[in-house]
């Protein structure tokens, strides 16, 4: 009984039908201090990325020019000066080896890191919503086939496949776009499962039945009645998935199969930093710190939004349930109508670790 109420709560929370609900969600989110701090950090990061050309112009530097005069060739390229060569011209120092400006590279790297993550998340959510809708609204055969496909995709060793896929794409293809597609295409399983679960539970609700009795066709029901109800779980999922994708991009670039110089991303900077951490720790700590703060901020924000959307389930557990995450079969069976959809959604959205 309370489960149905919870489903309704989440289903309509961000739906177009009740704007007042949306206000309430925002109010609850605002009371969550950690989430608001995270939101501020996220806003700053986005600003940092968007204003990258402006900021580096302000500094008077660009991310690709070599400054061989600022590194000590006797030590193999350690920047001269303290903290990795910090100066009035180079606010955060220069890259060891060839002396590219670190601040400009961090700022431009932010565009790649965040851009790839946002793009990959959109691809995942779009594909997932499509497949989830098809599975949830289609006939039994379609549902079985698609559900097995979801299990298969979720079970894939994502990192291994991503690395392998990077091998078969021609050299000239723009790396950030490629990263976005690879991370996106490999990650549609979890959102599809969330959407399918939500569709199944919405399908059994009275107002959908009423619409069908009222003569609405299958497509109309899907578009007018089901789709709005998907907004809340999908948005929550996307927000929690974003930091995972940031980490995935960083990981792939760190391994040397992602973004390559002269382009920069935080992961790419870290991959060159591995040989310098003894002589130039600043160069390691800067991208590392940014990466950590970004992932943490998005995770806290996503967590906060989930709580705001569904305070009851959240106070009961605050994260996940015993089904879900564990094995594909269980999450699929948890996805039956009335089986506590927000919990299942929450679980599938819990960031998986990127190793290994």
């Amino acid at each position: 009984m309370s489960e149905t109420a919870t489903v309704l709560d989440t289903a309509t929370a961000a739906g177009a039908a009740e704007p007042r609900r949306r206000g309430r969600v925002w109010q609850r989110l605002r009371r969550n201090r950690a989430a608001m701090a995270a939101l501020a950090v996220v806003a700053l990061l986005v600003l940092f990325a968007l204003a990258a050309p402006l900021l580096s112009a302000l500094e008077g530097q660009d991310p690709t020019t070599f400054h061989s005069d600022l590194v000590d060739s006797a030590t193999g390229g350690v920047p001269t000066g303290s903290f990795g060569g910090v100066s009035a011209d180079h606010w955060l120092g220069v890259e060891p080896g060839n002396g590219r400006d670190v601040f400009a590279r961090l700022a431009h790297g932010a565009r790649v890191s965040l851009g790839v993550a946002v793009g990959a998340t959109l691809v995942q959510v779009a594909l997932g919503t499509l497949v989830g809708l098809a599975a949830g609204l289609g006939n039994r055969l379609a549902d079985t086939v698609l559900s097995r496909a979801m299990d298969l995709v979720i079970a894939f060793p994502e990192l291994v496949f991503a690395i392998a896929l990077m091998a078969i794409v021609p050299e000239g293809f723009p790396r950030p776009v490629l990263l976005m597609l690879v991370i996106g295409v490999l990650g549609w399983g979890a959102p599809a499962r969330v959407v399918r679960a939500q569709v199944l539970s919405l399908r059994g609700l009275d107002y959908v039945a009423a619409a069908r009795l009222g003569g609405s066709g299958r497509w109309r029901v899907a578009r007018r009645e089901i789709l709005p109800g998907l907004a809340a779980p999908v948005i929550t999922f996307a927000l929690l998935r974003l930091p995972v994708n940031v980490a995935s991009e960083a990981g792939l670039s760190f391994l040397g199969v992602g973004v390559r110089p002269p382009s920069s991303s935080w992961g790419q900077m870290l991959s060159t930093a591995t040989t310098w951490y003894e002589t130039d720790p600043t160069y390691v700590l800067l991208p590392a710190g940014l990466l950590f703060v970004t992932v943490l901020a998005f995770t806290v924000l996503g967590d906060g939004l989930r709580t705001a959307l569904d305070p009851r389930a959240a106070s009961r557990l605050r994260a996940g349930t015993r089904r879900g995450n564990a094995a594909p079969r269980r999450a699929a069976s948890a996805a039956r109508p009335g089986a506590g959809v927000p919990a299942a959604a929450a679980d599938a959205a819990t960031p998986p670790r990127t190793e290994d």
Partner: protein
Amino acid sequence: MLRFLLRRSVSTVLVLLVLSAVVFTLFYATPGDPAILACGKGCDGDRLAVVRHKLGTDLPLWDQYWHFLRGLVAGRDYDAGADTTHCAAPCFGYSFQYDQPVLGMITARLPVDVSLTLGAMVIWMVVGVGTGLLSALRRGGATERLLTGLTLAGMSTPVFLIGLLLMMAFCSWLGWLPFPQYTPIADDPARWAANLVLPWLSLALISAAAYARMTRSSMLETLAEDHIRTGRAYGLPERRIVAGHALRGALTPVITLLAIDVGGMLGGATLTETVFGFDGLGRLLVNAVNHIDLPVVVGVTLFAAFFIVIANAVADVLYAVADPRVALA
């Protein structure tokens, strides 16, 4: 139960078949010609045709796949007149760049990943499950808030970051540990362990955070169930309720997750290997990707996928053993 096992085995084999077909098609149907890559620069007409014939890439794709499958079961000969290369069963392919069967390359590196995974597993189970239980049982207190915060921070840190920072701290600044360098356990168990401490820690920390989170929510859910309430109503001491009744239910999903995670890591802990410079399966894959050595890429990918699929099956069976309702579903 027997029917469940049977059904699960059949579906596992099916999934493996589908998976191998997908992987094979993905990598061999792409525009690049593996023969040109295997043959090297300046390879022309006749010689290229010979290489192509030897690799079997002159055959239609389904025929190649069939040869590949047969090679898995019965071994395979790469035939090019006088120059025949034999690859014994189970043949995962043959790397002409290294002139070695792929399976041998994989098994040579497997001990690295097995060492990494098993050691890390012990740490993260103790730390993770312990933290999770503690924060579930101390609900609402300062301990719980602290643990939840730590868990979130732990989950937010990419593994290679932890590895790098640990190495900076313990090897470079404090100098307490040597820079990790993989030593086989058979050579010197003490050095093997000393070199693996940092990789274990970095691999275990993020997993510990995830397991803590999962254990906590699972324990809380179990504690809210009817049979626990009944136990309380009978006046059983809390300690007996937790240890005797709640723990089993709460840890079941953790065990299944464990099976899957171990399966995944055995297929290559790429990031950890890279940070510490270990030559495991993950590095093998990355190097093969950088040199476009397709047989190795396909072999390692399939091998990793096999681990995952098998681990999934094991997880399901474990779950069914712990919770017989699943087998009936």
